[in-house]
């Protein structure tokens, strides 16, 4: 095994021994589209516009306490049972689920029979209406992919202009405890593999619903 490694690296070094001085590396520039570089209130508006453009739906509430009601409304509007699977992360723990006894809340990894999941996002990016979700002990990745309906709770303060800002936050907050998965999600699952006809719900969720919370975390 290691001989393949040595041979491959050896080949590369032999070919590149006359490599040019590293001008490219030093002169490279990061191009951040101006589209997302706006005052925060406009970033929120752009985020909503962009994520709806890619077939997600949104609801906006004032406080985390209002989240269960928004979720109940989404489930009812789509004729879904009042049952969700969630993680146990900080946001999920703060949401007062018990005030809304109509919704049954199960915790843990997604099961094949689950119809809807609720997860919290690490960030939202205005540029393209993309969500960043991270895996962790209290936020299993399967919740983002297995159920037919994926509901994401995002606080307005988590919306930023560009992906670069999210990477920087991740480095600062996660550092050595880098998460196994960072899932960028931009709309519900789709395919155009049959005669280029766009269809939602290929293998992942058929619906993506974002509940945007204006208040900051308590």
């Amino acid at each position, binding site marked *: 095994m290691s001989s393949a490694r040595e041979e491959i690296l050896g080949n*590369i070094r032999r070919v590149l021994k006359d490599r040019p001085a590293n001008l490219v590396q030093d002169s490279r520039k990061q191009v951040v589209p101006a589209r997302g570089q706006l005052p925060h209130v406009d970033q929120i508006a752009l985020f909503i516009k962009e994520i709806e453009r890619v077939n997600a739906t949104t609801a906006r509430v004032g406080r985390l306490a209002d989240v269960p009601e928004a979720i109940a409304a989404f489930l009812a509007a789509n004729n879904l049972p009042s049952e969700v699977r969630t993680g146990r992360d900080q946001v999920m723990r703060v949401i007062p689920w018990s005030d809304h006894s109509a919704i049954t809340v199960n915790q843990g*990894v997604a099961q094949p029979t689950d119809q809807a999941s609720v997860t919290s996002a690490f960030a939202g990016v205005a540029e393209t209406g993309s969500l960043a979700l991270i895996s962790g002990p209290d936020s*299993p990745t399967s919740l983002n992919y297995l159920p037919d309906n994926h509901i994401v709770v995002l606080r307005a303060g988590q919306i930023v202009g560009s992906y670069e800002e999210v990477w920087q936050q991740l480095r600062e907050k996660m550092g050595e405890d880098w998460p196994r998965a960072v899932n960028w999600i931009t709309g519900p699952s789709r395919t155009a593999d049959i005669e280029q006809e766009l269809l939602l719900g290929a293998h992942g969720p058929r619906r993506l619903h974002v509940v945007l919370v204006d208040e900051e975390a308590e």
Partner: protein
Amino acid sequence: MKPTSDVFINNSREALVNDTLQEALAKLAQGFPLKRFNAVSRLAEFDDLRDAARDIKTDVLNNLDSYLEKFEAQVIKQGGKVHWARTADEACKIIVGLCEDAGARTVTKSKSMIGEEIALNESLEDAGIVPVETDLGEYIIQLRKEPPSHIIAPAIHLTIEQVADTFKEAHQDYPADRALTEPRVLLDEARQVLRQRFIDADVGITGANMLVAETGSIVVVTNEGNADLTMTLPKVHIAVASLEKIVPTLEDATTLMRVLARSATGQDMSVYTTLATGPKRDEDQDGPEAFHIVLLDNGRTDMLGGDFHEMLRCIRCGACLNHCPIYKSVGGHAYGWVYSGPMGAVLMPNLLGIGKTGDLPNASTLCGKCEEICPVRIPLPDMLRQWRTRQFDAAVTSSKSHFGLKVWAYMVKRPLLYRFFVSFMLSNLRKFGRKGRFNWLPFAKGWTQVRDFPAPEGQSFIHQYLMSQKRKR
């Protein structure tokens, strides 16, 4: 899969008279280029991003050894394992070995062009392991035992009727008389069949759109979510990628993401872009227990530093296929292997040898559209020309065309002789071509067999140009 690139001309002939294929290609020609155009029009910085994307890849290729070592060290630090493979064979052996160690009976796969290049499914089957492709298009062609006809839309050559027939044959548990006329119904059936496969699989195999040296992560992009189910549910995740997929930092990955989806499908961002780093952490409730990366060379280091060095910048978006008049006429299967279009016509001679792929670099009008739209600015037409030059130098072309090209080269290097010859020919053709066309000409059977050769009218371009210059004076 055994390449049939050596009979490209035959393949093309068949493709041109295949009505269902032509119908599918007409749809492709309307779809992808327009979607790309719209997405690019929405982003003022797109051309700057292309420059930045090109520079990232240039940096990567200039320092490939150090980025690979950095990547490897980070993967190990995060608890993953890195395997190096010189050839397709070595890569297959490693992957089959890992599957056997895991006691795997079935493995789910998300579409990987490297998987196609190394014919991984055949190796798995030979070892008694059942590979299940999960990308809808790739699943369809797996059932039909066909290679992909497009690097991002593998079943683009098929009509809905053909997919319906395939499903009726493969899904015997379903009623034989069910109606399969709507794409939605076909998708739901595939979703249902594959859902259980995702849950049952022992190992998940994915490719990688990028390898991030900074964090030791792989980046996998899909719209269906199949790659995420493939790499989250089974207890072992194996990713296979070629060496040049490396990028230095997360910001660099972002730049490539910004040009990839727009170039490929005309989306601003694909639905799912996943950065996967190592196996599940101790406290995690899901995710694979083991995370393996197989780094494949298979001819890449031979391309490094040579005439085709810049081809290694390719991010496999498929835009050059969608904009190529040849690809749009004959489709991907005519190219005879897993790659196609301009990128395939440059890459395949590198991987398979020019001897068996000699027609591919000649199957181009050199219109330049591929270079014009390439997100990493690969000079594809120059490279196609380079292959033609090499063919000429090695005299692998037929002795007749070799002689013809030599005569032509002799003439064009002597302008006076060339002009004399052209005006001599023009006046003769005018004299004999009174009907305005020829249905027979010496040495031009290849042309006149299928269409008339128009008789020239007026003088040559250079003659007209010189006259107009004289008039100006």
